[in-house]
């Protein structure tokens, strides 16, 4: 099966300023690919290149096997796009706006439009200028989904949506992906991408820092560990934890026993990597209490952000610095 999106060496210059410094990535069909990065990292520019709204300065793009620059209208009918900055006409209703886009990009089943509107809790007959930001966003999502495209390109899709509608959106994404569609979405918050995506690319200053599966990120992420073990010596617990790969920041405290409770050791530590080796070791102890927190992926990503830049002397960041120097 051909990949849904293949981007090779994508560069984009606006005047003298290069904002994308040679991106390479591929998106497998039937998956959700998330791009995260701070504002100005190049997420929107990348998406606009996929839609042929702006043109790359260098590099090649293949979307659903076609070059968006040359494929024309047939390709865009197979894509649903939500712009990062959604602007809607004022003097119209959601329904009339959707009818117009359906007339261009159809065919669209009216039944599906109504079903989507109901799921997202959106009144299509209200004037668009009276819609709140969240409701405008729903309308934007609707026009992207309604013609059942093979590829969805969604720029900050959940921005402005309340948590319940976000859940509904994630369910919708899962459904279309189960139906064979591919979703390419961006966000500046990881928790959102983490929930929706199979693969995550981290973009910063117009370069990809890393591409990884959410699973791998989770493994790389750091979890907080805390437990109480009864009838153990602090030294023994310390030695046991030292045998587990990925455990660090160990703090041990002896809790003296009294009439009611046995003497115990309270331990806190951090764990990165696999959980299984830790559980095996902990099974030797008489645990009274155990807390292993959800990994903080934000934290993990932040370490990756910095880690890779330090690692690669010729990283993208230094390129952008040079560009900046030319500018100044």
């Amino acid at each position: 099966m051909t990949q849904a999106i293949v981007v090779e060496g994508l560069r984009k210059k606006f005047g003298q300023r290069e904002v994308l410094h040679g991106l390479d990535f591929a998106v497998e069909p039937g998956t959700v690919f998330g791009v995260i990065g701070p504002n100005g990292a190049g997420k929107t520019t990348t998406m606009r290149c996929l839609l042929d709204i702006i043109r790359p300065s260098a590099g090649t793009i293949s979307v659903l096997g076609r070059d968006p620059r040359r494929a024309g209208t047939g390709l865009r009918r197979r894509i649903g796009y939500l712009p990062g900055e959604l602007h809607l006409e004022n003097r119209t209703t959601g329904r009339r706006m959707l009818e117009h886009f359906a007339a261009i990009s159809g065919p669209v089943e009216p039944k599906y439009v109504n079903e989507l509107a109901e799921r997202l809790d959106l009144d299509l007959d209200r004037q668009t200028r009276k819609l709140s930001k969240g409701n405008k966003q729903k309308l934007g999502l609707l026009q992207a989904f309604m013609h059942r495209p093979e590829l969805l390109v969604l720029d900050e899709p959940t921005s402005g949506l309340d948590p319940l509608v976000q859940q509904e959106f994630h369910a919708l994404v899962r459904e279309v992906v189960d139906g064979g569609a591919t979703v390419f979405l961006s966000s500046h918050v990881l928790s959102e991408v983490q929930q929706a995506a199979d693969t995550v690319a981290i973009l910063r200053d117009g370069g990809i820092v890393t591409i990884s599966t959410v699973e791998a990120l989770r493994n790389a992420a750091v979890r907080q560990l805390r437990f109480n073990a009864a009838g153990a010596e602090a030294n023994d617990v310390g030695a046991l934890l030292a045998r587990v790969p990925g455990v660090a920041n160990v703090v041990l405290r002896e809790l003296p026993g009294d009439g009611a409770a046995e003497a115990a050791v309270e331990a806190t530590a951090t764990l990165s990597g696999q959980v299984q080796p830790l559980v095996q070791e902990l099974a030797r102890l008489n645990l009274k209490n155990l807390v292993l927190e959800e990994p903080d992926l934000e934290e993990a990503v932040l370490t990756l952000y910095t880690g890779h830049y330090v690692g690669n002397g010729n990283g993208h960041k230094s390129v952008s610095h040079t560009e900046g120097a030319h500018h100044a």
Partner: protein
Amino acid sequence: MPRFLPLFTKALTDSWRSTLAWALGLTGAIMLYLPLYPSIGGSAQMQQMIDALPQEMTKALNYDQIATGPGYTQATMFGLIGFLLMSMASVGWGAAAVGGDEESGLLELTLAHSVTRIQVVLERALALVVRVGILSALVFLLVLVLNGPSKLDIDVGHLFGAVVLFAALALLSGTAALCVGALTGRKVYAIAAGAAVAVLGYVFNAVGRQSPDVDWLLNLSPYHWAYGNSPITNGADWGAAAGLLGISAALIALGAVALQRRDVGV
């Protein structure tokens, strides 16, 4: 089934309010000016007053022919108030068609759907042509209706030719606005270009008619191309009409090609 010319029909239906407003404005202007001809333009008193004005002024205002019905209609309606209203309408629509749409952020979403950029420019230009055509047809009918009661004595064939030139002249400023909007993506540049075509055309005509030393300015004035031989009195110069429409067509084509080749919304 994709609908026939969806962008064209949308551009037309979205602007029915402004089309109606300009139609009312033109109707008001015609109803105000033309019925006054028997008491103003045709009267000997008025002619004496005009004769007393400096010649430069009467030439600049096209009042040198005001003593005849066709001349009066040309000077007040086609040459001045009608020209002003139609040019404003046309420039407004032309600037909104691409430049305004892009600047407001709407064009990006339209282009993400299954349309080509050339199609966007051509369908919206067609909507501009149709709206200018509707207003011009209205002007033709109103003048025709008032022709008898207001004793204008205009030849219907000449009126038709004059209205075609009137429409072609207004369309030229509109397509200039559309073209510059497509080139730059900025509404204000588009309006400036359209207004420049209309205003400079008018000024070059007014100044060029003053003396033979500056009459080369007339060659640069679309206003003069259209009205130089007094079409409502003498019949249309169809070559001039074709020329004006040809330039408009070229401007539309240039806009389409320019939009096709550049980044949108940056």
